[in-house]
């Protein structure tokens, strides 16, 4: 396939992914908007007014970047895991395997689909947050890069989950038992500098801490960890997961006999 054909193939997969999550918007776009609004009302307004300041800003301002990032993480992951598992389940993955589309294009097609949903939901949550607080961007590059690289990372995670999944239950185990606890413990609702030394050190093995803090730095200019180090860590994690996802796709795990 020449470059133009590769572009068409990539855009075809992305368009199919976007069409899918827009078609089922009450399951994909509406729930995070409602959930995050509740977080803003309960944690930001009601509880936050009693907490006062955190990290040098109001509690509401403090949790906004974390909640946006939480939406990006869960939606990027869920999009690829459910979509790729569905095509496996319905066997329509065979359309792609039989076609001349290179494996890198297939993988990027799904990852970009995950990014699109993650960024769209992140934008919706950002818009919702503006009803509750003012939002200014401290560093555009860090903000955008963090969102994109985080979205890539969790899209790849969702892809790997879908490759191994044998039932729809299998694609909800990781989000429920791994992703949600790591996100809640990743500094979304609190500054890790407020923890004791042991818990601070333990928090540093949670990769979500780096993403939330880098994103918070991009928006508020405040971070509990070194931002450059955070971005390097997340980028490296992306490279590792991409390698694993590509290997599984090339091996045809769960897709070819």
């Amino acid at each position: 396939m020449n470059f133009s054909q590769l572009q068409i193939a990539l855009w075809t997969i992305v368009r199919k992914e976007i069409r899918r999550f827009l078609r089922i918007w009450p399951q994909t776009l509406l729930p995070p908007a409602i959930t995050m609004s509740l977080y803003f009302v309960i944690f930001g307004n009601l509880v936050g007014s009693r907490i006062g300041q955190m990290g040098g800003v109001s509690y509401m301002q403090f949790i906004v970047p974390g909640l946006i990032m939480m939406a990006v993480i869960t939606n990027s992951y869920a999009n690829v895991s459910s979509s790729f598992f569905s095509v496996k389940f319905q066997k329509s993955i065979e359309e792609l395997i039989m076609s001349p589309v290179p494996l890198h294009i297939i993988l990027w097609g799904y990852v970009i689909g995950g990014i699109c949903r993650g960024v769209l939901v992140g934008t919706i949550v950002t818009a919702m947050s503006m009803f509750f607080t003012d939002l200014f961007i401290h560093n555009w590059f860090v903000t955008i890069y963090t969102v994109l690289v985080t979205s890539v990372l969790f899209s790849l995670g969702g892809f790997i989950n879908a490759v191994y999944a044998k039932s729809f239950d299998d694609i909800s185990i990781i989000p429920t038992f791994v992703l949600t606890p790591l996100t809640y413990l990743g500094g979304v609702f609190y500054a890790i500098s407020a923890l004791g030394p042991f818990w601070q050190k333990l928090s540093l093995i949670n990769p979500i801490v780096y993403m939330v803090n880098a994103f918070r730095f991009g928006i508020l200019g405040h971070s509990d960890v070194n931002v450059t180090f955070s971005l390097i860590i997340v980028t490296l994690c992306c490279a590792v997961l991409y390698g694993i996802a590509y290997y599984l796709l090339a091996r045809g795990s769960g897709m070819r006999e």
Partner: protein
Amino acid sequence: MTDALVLRDLSKTYRNGFQALKGINLTVPEGEFYALLGPNGAGKSTTIGIISSLTKKTAGTVEIFGHNLDTHPSLAKQQLGVVPQEFNFGQFEKTFDILVTQAGYYGIHKKIAEKRAEHYLEKLGLWEKRNIQARMLSGGMKRRLMIARAMMHEPKLLILDEPTAGVDIELRRSMWDFLTEMNESGTSIILTTHYLEEAEMLCRRIAIIDRGVIKEDTSMKSFLNQLNEESFIFDLAEPIGPLQLNIIGVKFNLIDSNTLEVTMDRAHTLNDLFQLLESQGIRVRSMRNKSNRLEELFVKMVEKNLEGEAK
């Protein structure tokens, strides 16, 4: 002229040790309409699975229009369209979208893809269903959708794995017309089917696979010539009593007073037979083959293999 498909020493052993293919060799010339037949579990679907990249082979090579599937997968896959046995499209996708998406996987521009989708949906009687989700289509419509999808990149080689299974006779005939038209316009076709009259009517060459081995690979005509005897059923104009005819190479079996079964070898012609019946004062209203000729040969071949194995 390049061969449409060349299989060399193709073998497949599954993880449980079952050897589905035992080094098969097959050459399908360009423009051919080929029947790939075999009993259930013979290795037909495994062969198609390997050609379409859905099944990993254990050994051997696959070449599609001269392009090796291992070394030049992109070029090889561009030439190939496959209609699998099981429905394998997104059930929640609209019919039209399935076709346009399929074309996109082959790098075909959306505008061209939309025109082709319209053409094939109309051709296969699905245009009215273009905005319907695939899961809402009937079984026959889903089969036609799979054929339309396989044609979207206009492959030079089309493989159909039991495309008419569970399809009513009227629809089956319209599919035959479509496939004949495709073949006449230059598309090489390989067909697997359990309807042997379908294979006899459509295909010019035949390969029979059994227990992972190609048992026959010849023209349909020469294969049918192997049939030593043929059975006919005669509907008689008037009832007759028991027959006392002893002719070498011809067996008579009076099914009832108005129905006569005659089995005769190739040394005799139908003219001989009608002369004989005329001399006996037997008048025939109509006649038909007892069973399809290809079916007779196929069943005999499979039975022979089974007997050989039992010994």
